[in-house]
């Protein structure tokens, strides 16, 4: 799906008075969300940065109807809302969960998995800033290897939990990864997801200047570097078919990738490992493992002969 920037709605989605930090990727993402969906949607927001970004009641800095909900209940409250709308004859209202990585991969994971398995007709967007930023940068299961947080002072020892892959394993209708560094790609994915009935999941990488320790002017650039280094491949899984997003395809070739050090050195959270080649090597190996998995996914979720052969041999 191509997105014509000229045709994107100009209506303001983020208002003065919202409480986001400078360079916040979540407000960038929200703008794109509104551009993609227009007016006929409601948001369900479990605890996280976006609970605060709305600003102080009775006003709101986000131009959308929002149901704020407890941390673990993003997907379940949204599933209920959708059923509620359907039961009173309002089948057209889109219900969107806007949850952080903790609300998605940690405390909210059970409800997410439940809604995915039931194929509830909601769009779940995980805004992944790779830690509990709202409470002061504590590690989550989606914090990457080596990253400093206030609960991993010498760097996290475990790799990032791969939630999009787990969602694919649920066999849902649609899974995509996106980055705030590539707005039109994200908008196109949201638009496509909104046309599918059933459970849709989009994983939006959201580089956080405060938690990742970088210049707030660089949010978009770091969002692009995550893709260009191969750390965060952009792809779509749709009805059993997997494909890399066009702008990420070239990074399948390792020689086309930007060296990961270019990404790491811009971020204070990696400061302690910049001069440790063995640590950099671990991250490079991780990138290799990610692309190995992409290769497997491309083969496994391919309607062509190759997939049948592969699955037959398992």
């Amino acid at each position, binding site marked *: 799906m191509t997105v014509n920037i000229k045709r994107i709605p100009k209506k303001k989605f983020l208002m003065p008075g919202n409480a986001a930090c400078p360079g916040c990727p979540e407000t960038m993402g929200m703008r794109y969300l509104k551009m993609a969906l227009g*007016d*006929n*949607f*409601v948001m*369900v927001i479990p605890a996280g940065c976006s*609970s*605060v970004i*709305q*600003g*102080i*009641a*009775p006003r*709101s800095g*986000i131009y959308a*109807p*929002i*149901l*704020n*909900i*407890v941390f*673990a*209940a993003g*997907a*379940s*409250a*949204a*599933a*209920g*809302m*959708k*059923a*509620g*709308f*359907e*039961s*009173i004859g*309002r089948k057209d*209202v889109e219900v969107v969960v806007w949850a952080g990585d903790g609300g998605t991969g940690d405390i909210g994971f*059970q*409800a997410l*998995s*439940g809604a995915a*398995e*039931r194929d*509830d007709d909601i769009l779940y967007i995980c805004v992944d800033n790779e830690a509990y930023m709202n409470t002061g940068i504590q590690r989550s299961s989606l914090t990457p290897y080596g990253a400093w947080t206030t609960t991993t002072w010498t760097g996290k020892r475990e790799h990032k939990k791969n939630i999009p892959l787990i969602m694919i394993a649920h066999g849902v209708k649609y899974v995509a990864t996106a980055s705030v560094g590539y707005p039109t790609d994200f908008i196109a994915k949201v638009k496509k997801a909104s046309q599918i009935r059933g459970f849709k999941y989009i994983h939006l990488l959201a580089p956080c200047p405060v938690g990742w320790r970088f210049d707030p002017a660089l949010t978009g650039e770091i969002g692009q570097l995550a893709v260009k280094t191969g750390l965060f491949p952009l792809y779509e899984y749709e009805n059993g078919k997997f494909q890399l997003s066009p702008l990420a395809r070239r990074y399948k070739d390792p020689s086309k990738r930007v060296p990961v050090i270019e990404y790491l050195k811009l971020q204070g959270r990696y400061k302690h490992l910049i001069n440790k080649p063995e640590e950099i090597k671990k991250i490079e190996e991780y990138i290799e493992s990610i692309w190995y998995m992409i290769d497997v996914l491309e083969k496994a979720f391919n309607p062509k002969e190759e997939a049948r052969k592969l699955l037959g041999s398992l």
Partner: protein
Amino acid sequence: MVVKTLTGNYAVAYAVKLARVNVVSAYPITPQTTIVEKLSEMIEKGELNARMIRVESEHSALAAVYGAASAGARAFTATSSHGLLYMHEVVWWAAGSRIPLVMAVVTRAIGPPWNIHVDHQDILDQRDSGWIIAVAQENQEVLDLTLQAFKISEDPRVYLPMMVGLDGFILSHTTAPVDIPDQELVDSWLPPRRQPYIIAPESEVVMGNIAPDEDHFMMRYSMAASMEAAKKVIEEVDREYGEIFGRSYGGLVECYKCEDAEYFVVIMGSWAGDAKKAVDTLREQNVPVGVVRIRFVRPWPREKLLEILSGAKGVLVFDRAVSMGSTGILFSEVAQTLYPLNISLKGLVAGLAGVDVGPSRIEAEILKFIKQTEEGAIYTPTEWILPEKYAGRYPSSPKEVIAK
């Protein structure tokens, strides 16, 4: 009107059907499960036009019906014991949002050790949350209260969710004849869904973002005011239900043989039936005793109790739940209500984990209490009726255990 032999759980399901609920969501837990089994059957057979969300946990069950209700649907869930405790966070969130909802709670002990039998520890653990909380004595009342819960919860003077308690197994799995009201009559009595706001694209409502402390404070104040208003609404609904369907229960509390009573048993739930039986026997011996059955724990029927009990010689409170480190939960409520009055007062903790306390034991406790009071008013906040197996081996007051 049709009379059917129903378990308490099926009585709940029939009430939910009569209320034309739009969305049901629940997770299995004994002894609640047959409520949602029955509702699933009704929905799949097309007898009830509703959506069923078969969630992966109770936390999600309440969040789902809360989401549905926020979108403008009439929604229902049911749970028990650990399921209710697991929901606890959403219990508070739903009440604070002022979203009308109805939940059946099949009361059951909390572990460890695992136990599926009745006590009131689970439902009374929710008492500070802002839900209207009622507990039934028998299956007919289960149906009537569940139906009334929709009307009470959706009344603009209330706009608070409501839970209806029914005792695990004793009501939930025991059959009794139940009058099922006519659908047409229910339709003319229960108005279409009302709620303070709807989260929808055109409503531009944002619910739950950070508010100034003073506003948060005032939202609590407003809930407290609605709880007070709910007392009137509950009495009204009980009265009009009686006029239309032929059954009234006395509103917030039921009084049994209270008129000329000097002594009162305060009790809640199915074992109130045992207390009534004990009172019947004692009345034959001219003992002036009555039963005050708490039907609504929240709002707490302070005024009504003062009206009934202010002339009493003695009040004996039976508790099926205890606040550890303090007293039985109903006892502390009764004691704070009667505080300025010089009335002999005793609290008994009994029947935890489904341990049986029959009418004869209640009878004996009443006589013992009267005898104690006649020697001079007493104030005994907590005594335990120990299971027969252990009686005599341990003191009836846990306080004395330390002394030994």
